[in-house]
C-alpha cells in the first residue's frame, strides 16, 4: 500500500499539484479525475461518489465518514462483475489513494 507522499509524487498526480494545496487535496483530486474519466468514457456512474469528496477538498477539511462512504460505494461497484478488469484496476487505484489519505489524516500527517 502506497503512502500519501508517495502517491503525491507520482508522475500522474504532478499535473494536479500546486503550491497552496495540501497533499491530501491533490491526491484526492487525482482520484476524482479518475472516477470522472470512468463515467465520461461510459464505464460506470461515479458522480454520486465524486460530489461529496469534491466538497471535502473545497472545504479544506477531510471528512472520514464521507471517505468511508465513498470507499464502500467503490467496493460495491467492484463487486459487480460486469465492469471488467480495466475498471476494477482503476477503482483499486482510487481506493489506494483514499486509504492513504485516511491513514495520513489519522496519523496527523496531511
Amino acid at each position: 500500500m502506497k503512502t500519501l507522499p508517495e502517491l503525491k509524487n507520482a508522475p500522474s498526480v504532478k499535473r494536479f499539484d500546486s503550491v497552496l494545496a495540501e497533499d491530501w487535496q491533490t491526491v484526492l483530486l487525482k482520484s476524482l479525475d479518475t472516477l470522472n474519466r470512468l463515467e465520461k468514457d461510459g464505464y460506470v456512474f461515479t458522480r454520486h461518489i465524486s460530489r461529496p469528496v469534491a466538497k471535502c477538498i473545497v472545504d479544506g477539511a477531510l471528512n472520514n465518514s464521507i471517505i468511508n462512504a465513498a470507499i464502500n460505494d467503490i467496493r460495491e461497484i467492484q463487486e459487480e462483475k460486469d465492469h471488467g478488469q480495466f475498471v476494477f484496476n482503476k477503482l483499486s487505484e482510487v481506493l489506494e489513494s483514499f486509504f492513504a489519505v485516511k491513514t495520513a489524516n489519522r496519523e496527523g500527517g496531511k
Partner: protein
Amino acid sequence: MKKGYDFYSKYVNAFSELLLDLQEREVDTKRIDVCANKIRFVSIAKALEKYKTVEALSAKIGIDIELLSDTNDHTKMIACVEGVPYLLGRSSWISISGRIDIYGGGLAALEPDDKAQLINARLAQLGDNLIKVVIVNQKIRAMMSRKYATIPANEVFKQVAEKARERFASTKFVTGFYNHEFAFAQLMFPEVAQKLSEAYGLPEELTPGITVITSDTGHAGVKIVGSWVSPKGRFQQAGTEVYLRHENSNSLEKVLEELPNLFIKYQNMALKLAALMGIEIKFPATVLKKALKELGAGERNAKMLLETLPTNDVTAYDICMELFSLPARLDIAETSRLELEEKIAKAINLDFTKLDNDK
C-alpha cells in the same frame, strides 16, 4: 506647484498618501455627459480679444490667473461645455485627437484658432452623440466617447491592493506616482516570496510584486504587471499582465476578476478544480466557445474539443479539462504551444456560471 497645473506630478512614499491624494483628486473631479454639439472650443487669444485683459478673462471663467497662464503655455484653448467655460488641460489632447475621431498628425501643429475651428466643425458633425467631459483640478483633462467606462484611479489602487493583501498575506509599498495623465504604484509581497519563488523555480532572493498603472483621463486603461524584484530593487516583468481599457461594459470588477491570473502558479489548484465539479453546465458548446474567446485561444478550436466532451451532465470541470488538453492536441510549433498553455492555464479562473447561457 498647484495641482491644476498641466505638469503637476508627485512621487509618494506611502500607499495611504497615494490613496488620500487620489481620493482628494476624485472629489475635485467632475464628469459631465454632454452632446457633442454643445461643446465649443475657443482659443485663449480669441477670448482675450473679447475680454481684453487676462484678469477679466480669468474672472469670467472663475479661475485664477496662474492656471490661465499655464493653459496659455500649453493647449492655449478654452472649451465651453453647455455655455460654461473651462480651461483645456494638456492631457485632454490624447482623448480629443483620438477618441472623437479627429485624426492626423498635422492637427497638433495647427494654430490654436484653426485647431478650435476644426474641432468645432467635427463636434457639430457628431451632433447629439454624447461625450463625457472629465474635469479635474479645474481643467478639462479628457473628452471621452460614449463608449468610455468610468473607473476612477483611487478605486483601482484601493481595491487592487485589498485583493492583493487577501491573496499574498501582506503588501509592501515600494513607490507611487501620479500626474494628470496616469498614476502608478509598485507593491511587493515579501511574506510569500519563498513559496512563490519555489513555485516558479527562481532564486529565493527575488521578491514577487505588482505594478499597477492606471489612467482615468487620457489613456483610459488599467494595466497590472506581475514582477520579480531583485535585492537591489530592480523590477523584472513576470509572465502575463492584466490590461483592460476603460470602455463599454468593462469595470473594476472585471479587473479584479483577472487578478488571480497574475502569478497563476500561486494557487490551490485542487480546491479550484474540485469546486468546478459542482457546477453543472446547461450549454456546454456555448460555454466552450465563450471560454476559448475569453482566453484568446481561438473559438475555432471548440469543434475539436466538443468531440470529446461528454454529452450528458457536463460540469465546469469537464470543460476546464477539455481546455487544458488543447495545447497537446494541436499540431503547432513549440513556442506557440507554450504561449497557448499560458493562455489556457487561466481557464481555472473563469467564471463558468457567468458564461453558461445561450446568448
